[in-house]
């Protein structure tokens, strides 16, 4: 008999219990009050800033300018973008002219892993959505914006559509029907990488991005 069968047999021989189905929806309905759009934006921003992220309110008209300023203020002249997204293409159209070196993620990582780890100072990706309650970005990396893009570069810049902020994680997964299909990797990101493993002293930039910048996109300036 295999280890699998032995384990399952032991578990199946144990006394059977009948336990009530937990009512997660009822708990959220009772304990979390949905907020309006402005309330969610404010709460999201407050929480993620508390976790040391940098947030800039931008509009479709000025986000590129803000991005350029963010890079300049950090002394960065190189950024990794996707050539398969509209925001990536917008950067590719503008930035090289302004002297910013634009890297693209156009090959499998095996072909350029060392460069990714050692010579990629910043990246831009989009967030799929966000969560107000905890100040959390939801990322679904894909072929256009792969997984390492939001992890390896020391500065990660995220474009977030402010209308895509949910009240809670539960609301996000429920509204989007996550149970019917998840991607290879789904991520919740709530700030730059950090650790308190040395004498409970908080330090940022443990292994992931040292800085997380959110460009919060709204139709008109707030």
């Amino acid at each position, binding site marked *: 008999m295999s280890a699998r069968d032995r384990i399952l047999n032991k578990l199946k021989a144990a006394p059977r219990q009948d336990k*009530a189905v937990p009512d997660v929806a009822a708990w959220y309905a009772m304990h979390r009050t949905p907020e309006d759009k402005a309330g969610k934006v404010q709460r999201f921003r407050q929480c993620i800033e508390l976790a040391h992220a940098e947030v800039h309110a931008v509009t479709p008209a000025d986000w590129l300018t803000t991005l350029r300023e963010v890079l300049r203020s950090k002394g960065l002249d190189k950024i990794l973008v996707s050539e398969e997204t509209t925001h990536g293409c917008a950067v590719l159209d503008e930035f090289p002219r302004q002297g910013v070196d634009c890297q693209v993620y156009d090959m499998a990582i095996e072909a350029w892993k060392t460069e990714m780890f050692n010579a990629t100072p910043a990246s831009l990706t989009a967030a799929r959505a966000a969560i107000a309650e905890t100040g959390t970005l939801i990322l679904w990396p894909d072929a256009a914006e792969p997984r390492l893009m939001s992890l390896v570069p020391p500065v990660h810049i995220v474009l977030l559509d402010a209308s895509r902020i949910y009240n809670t994680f539960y609301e996000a997964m429920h509204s989007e029907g996550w149970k019917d299909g998840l991607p*290879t990797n789904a991520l919740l990101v709530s700030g730059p990488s950090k650790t308190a493993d040395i004498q409970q002293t908080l330090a940022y930039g443990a292994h992931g991005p040292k800085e997380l910048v959110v460009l919060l996109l709204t139709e008109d300036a707030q």
Partner: protein
Amino acid sequence: MSEHTLHFKPAEGFRARSKAVVDNPFLRQSFRGAMDFLMSKRAAQFPDAEELASLRTLGESIRQYNLAKLPTLLEQLEANLTRNGIQVHWAETPEEANAIILGICQRIGAELMVKGKSMVSEEIELNHAAEAAGVAALESDMGEYIVQLADEKPSHIIMPAIHKTKEEIARLFADKVEGVDYTDNVDALIQIGRNVLRQKFLEADIGLSGVNFAVAETGTLCLVENEGNGRMCTTAPPVHIAITGIEKIVEKLEHIPPLLSLLTRSATGQNISTYFNMISSPRQPGEKDGPAEVHLVLLDNGRSQAYADEQLRKTLQCIRCGACMNHCPVYTRIGGHAYGTTYPGPIGKIISPHMLGLDATSSMATASSLCGACGEVCPVKIPIPELLMRLREEAFTAPHANPSMLGQGAGYSWLMTSVWKGWAAVYRSPSLYAVATWLGSRFAWLMPAKQGAWTSVRVPLKPAPKRLRDMLKDRG
């Protein structure tokens, strides 16, 4: 295996190890300070007592519901992971789990394994087994990295290097990391760790991680972390191996948000961790990164024994937040190493006997004042004090047929049991009690000055010259 391999015989030397920590003011300060910090951070996350109470009740019902369906959910998880392209392996013992992991290493000719934080990998002592098989296993969580450099074991399940001061870590780095000068600046120390490990993430052949929750309905492995090393280990190397105990399964994705909230708020007092990483498959056609192979190792190691008993099954509700140890007066004073087990503190006392047998752990459940703090803070309402009482009974009653635990009766002593039986008989019978107390008051002078463990920290026991009943008689 190296000479530093800690063989799990917690019963041996538990007292001596505890005393060594109690006598060390620096270690006591480290633990006291850290526990006070973690307790106040947790308290700040739960300002609303009603919300906390109802969330704990929900957490308990989610864990109990899923445990009740465990065998079915394991089969469902296996089917969905397999459908997603993740290979599932089963191990009854630590040896089997190591053999599975090292078998994968050998097949791909792996030389370097980077590890995300995984207590189950500590439980199976994977690092030693890997070393013996010629595979370098490198811890990448900052705390685990520090502990590994010092050739030690984690002293806390969430904060592994909690027993070390920054000055000790500064000296350790200066001694062990090439080209590093002494600095006790915490930011600088973290940057040293970051730079060393970044190169290793780039080079590693295998990434190993634990699992916080496995979702049966979607076939998803979930990892909670702050540093990003877990994401590195599960994304950068060409092969990812995850290992978990068989109990960490939930049926539905919607069970995750409440458990995640309870976990991070109870563990470190964060409303959420920096990263919550949900992995459902290896790299798909067209994707440009991520491991080509993902494996999950499901480990039993005594969990099915706990599962077989309806009361002991509650042990498996645990989501490994560590709040019980943070609030434990015993853990705070003796620290994590004294226990001699992978899992220290209250949760260690109730889970280790299933992994190691009661013969190796019979004294663990006695190292408790039964103050009840662990049960009060447990986010999934495990009745830890009740389980400690049950384990004491299992360890110290006479061995009997069909025991529910391996090593039942290991602490049994004919003499001790007889003494307590005699004591009980005397206290049940008024006439025997009268005779015994009369003898006691007349022969009090016979009491020795040294009365074993009692007089090691207390004055000797001596019956009063006059019994209470005689004093009352005198007063009329």
